Structures are given as structure tokens and as C-alpha cells.
């Protein structure tokens, strides 16, 4: 099931040229399988680009993204860790564009772990605070990354205040 959802993810990325490869699997993690999935996804994407459900989800994922001045273009490594009974993500490390927002990563995780858009999902930095939805991941990386990674905890309930 997880693979299926991944496919959909990639497929959505392939549909939107400006958003292409917004999220990539980190190198070294099942690269061959990745290639296959990617190819299949592109085809599927071309064929079903008008599927309403898919379009709607794509919109959700794209909506909060904002261009950042100083941080545009680059990519950062984000490590996603579950808290409490939040479902585990099979793939934890992601390479994400710096101009993506917290709202975007919330929508992304929500989709990956197959939550409804209406279900609440909280993202925490340093196991301490929940950043503002329009905060860019680039800003968070610049301020709170350690060892070249931004660690974000996700929870289905309020975990830290």
C-alpha cells in the first residue's frame, strides 16, 4: 500500500512542471525500485491527469508552497519521525526544496500516511514548538538543522504544548 501511495506522489509531481521532483527519495534507498516507480508514475500521470480526486490532492499539496528569495533553488534533507501512535513512514529521509512551507510538509505527510485532509496533524521542531504553517523549511533548516538534517516530528495529537 505504501508503494502505491508513493507512486501517486511521484505521479503528482510529474504533472506539475514547476513542482517537479519537489520531494525525492534520498540517495541509496532502493534506487532501482525508485526508477521503476517513477517511470510508471509518469505514464499513469499522463493518463489520469483529470482524475478529480487526484487533482484535488495535488492542489492541496501545491497550495501552501511559496517562493523564497534567498533560499530558492536549493534542497535540504528532512528527517520525519513519528510521535506517539502516528503511523510510521516507511521512508523517513526526504530531500525537499527550501521554499516549501510547513503547511506543505503537513499536507505531504498526511497524504503519505493516508490521513484525511480534515484529520489534524502536528509538526514539531526540536521536540519543542510547532512552527507556523507558512514558515519555510529553508528558514527552519537555517535555524534548527543539526548534522545537515532538519528533524521534524509529526503527531496526530498535540505532543508538546
Amino acid at each position: 500500500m505504501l508503494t502505491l501511495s508513493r507512486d501517486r506522489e511521484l505521479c503528482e509531481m510529474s504533472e506539475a512542471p514547476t513542482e517537479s521532483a519537489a520531494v525525492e527519495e534520498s540517495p541509496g534507498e532502493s534506487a532501482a525500485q525508485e526508477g521503476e516507480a517513477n517511470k510508471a508514475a509518469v505514464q499513469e500521470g499522463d493518463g489520469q491527469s483529470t482524475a478529480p480526486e487526484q487533482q484535488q490532492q495535488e492542489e492541496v499539496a501545491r497550495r501552501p508552497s511559496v517562493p523564497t528569495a534567498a533560499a530558492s533553488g536549493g534542497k535540504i534533507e528532512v528527517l520525519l519521525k513519528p510521535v506517539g501512535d502516528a503511523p510510521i513512514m516507511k521512508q523517513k529521509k526526504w530531500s525537499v526544496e527550501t521554499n516549501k512551507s510547513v503547511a506543505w510538509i503537513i499536507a505531504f505527510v498526511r497524504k503519505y500516511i493516508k490521513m484525511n485532509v480534515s484529520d489534524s496533524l502536528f509538526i514539531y521542531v526540536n521536540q519543542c514548538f510547532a512552527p507556523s504553517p507558512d514558515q519555510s523549511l529553508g528558514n527552519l533548516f537555517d535555524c534548527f538543522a543539526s548534522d545537515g538534517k532538519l528533524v521534524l516530528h509529526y503527531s496526530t495529537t498535540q505532543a508538546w504544548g
Partner: protein
Amino acid sequence: MPQDYDVTRQVWEGKVPVEFVLAAHECTIIDAPKPYYAMLPRISYFPLALERAYKYFMSAVDESEVNKDDVWLEYDGYPLKWHYPVGVLFDLHKTDDVLPWQITVHLKKFPEDDIIRCAGRDALESMFMQSLKEADQLKHRGEIVNTMQKRDHKQLWNGLVNDRFDQFWLVNKKLMENSGSNTFHFVPMRLYKTDKPYRQVLVKPMNEAAERTTLAEACRIFDPGFDSSSSRVVSHGVEVPLDTPVIWLAENLAYPDNFVHISILSS
């Protein structure tokens, strides 16, 4: 260095006159209501003031026609972000000297792409507290805010909402502790430019030459191409001298969320 009472008091008391005008053409209205006027603290947030303005406008509108969650504010074509302090939005978007600041209240066509929805006063309080925690994470690795009691957090929020300077600062001075083991690690700063998302980077109180980091140096960390001859650097409506040490800004010019909010405008 402790706070300069006169400065923190002035910052607290800064206000802007606002004229809320209903975008009446979007609704079925027989008599378009007159504008709603308010003096808003710069350090406060629009949703706190909007509750009364909303009630006022509702008397003129068919309530079944509008949804409270769809309310949004616009000035000069910019949807205003409700979670930014009023003073930041004013400094960033108000380009002329005309007062009061005329803001359009829209009840429809919420601009989903540009702003997030405010789910009421609780959402605002939560956003404020998280921002405060983030600031303390930068200053003290979160050690002070995390050891505070829940009632201290409430006191900060209530102090802001009820415009009680002393009540707020009684708790806030702990977050401003900058000595001994509680010396600031970094200065919580956000830099705004029109049309761009804000930037937030690590700014140390002291530079590599062991001198106090100045605002000009901080601006160059945010934007290596920063040109002081073509920019005005503004906070609380005041053009801040570029040789001001950022540590002084953090202690005296921070908004209640403990961040220093700076707008860079072209001159």
C-alpha cells in the same frame, strides 16, 4: 543589559488608526454600513480587533449569506496575514502617509493561495505561544519557556490581549534574561520584504571579531546583496539605525512574541 523602560513602554503603546471598510458589493446589502474605526496596538493582532468589527458589519449583512471563517482583510491588493503583528503589516504594506489606514473587510472569496485561515482566538493564542517558544529555542535553547508554568504562558497572552504592560513584562523579563548561564545564543529575528515570504536565519549577538553584531551585519546575513543606500530598515514604524546592536533590538524592540520583526523597504 536590562531593558530600557522608556523604549519598551513606547513600543507597547504604539498604535495605528484603522478604518475598516466592508467590501459591500460582495454581499446583498440594502444600506452599506459606515466604516468601523479603531486604534489598534501595533504589537497586537488583527483577529483580536476584528471580533467587534465583524459584529458591527454583521448587523448590515444577511448572516445566512456569510461564514465567519471566510472573513479576510485586504490592503492595496495584499491579503493581510492575520498571524503577523499589526505593526509588521503596517510597516510592510503602508506606503503612503494617509491615515487612518483603510483596510477592506472581505466576507467572500477567501484567498486560499495567499493566506491561512484563522480558526478564532484560540488558534491565534496557540500561534503566539508557539512563536514565543521558537524565539526562546533560539535564545535559551527553550530552557526558560519550557520550565515556565502554564499560568505564566496564560499571563503573557492575557497581558497582550488586555493591554496590561506590567502583567506581561513580569513574566516576559524571564524570557529576556541575558546573563550567566542564560546568555542569548542567538537573536530571534525575522526579516520581511514586500512580495516575499519572510526570512529567518541564525544571528549571533556577537560577531567573529567579538564585537556586538550590528543591524547592518544582520541584514547582510539575511541578504548578502543588502544595500543600505537603497533600503530603509524599519521596525515599529521607526527607521532603525543600521549600527544598532542586534542584542539591543532583541531586548528592547522585540514584539511580544519575542521576535524582532524588521521590514526592509526600498527608499
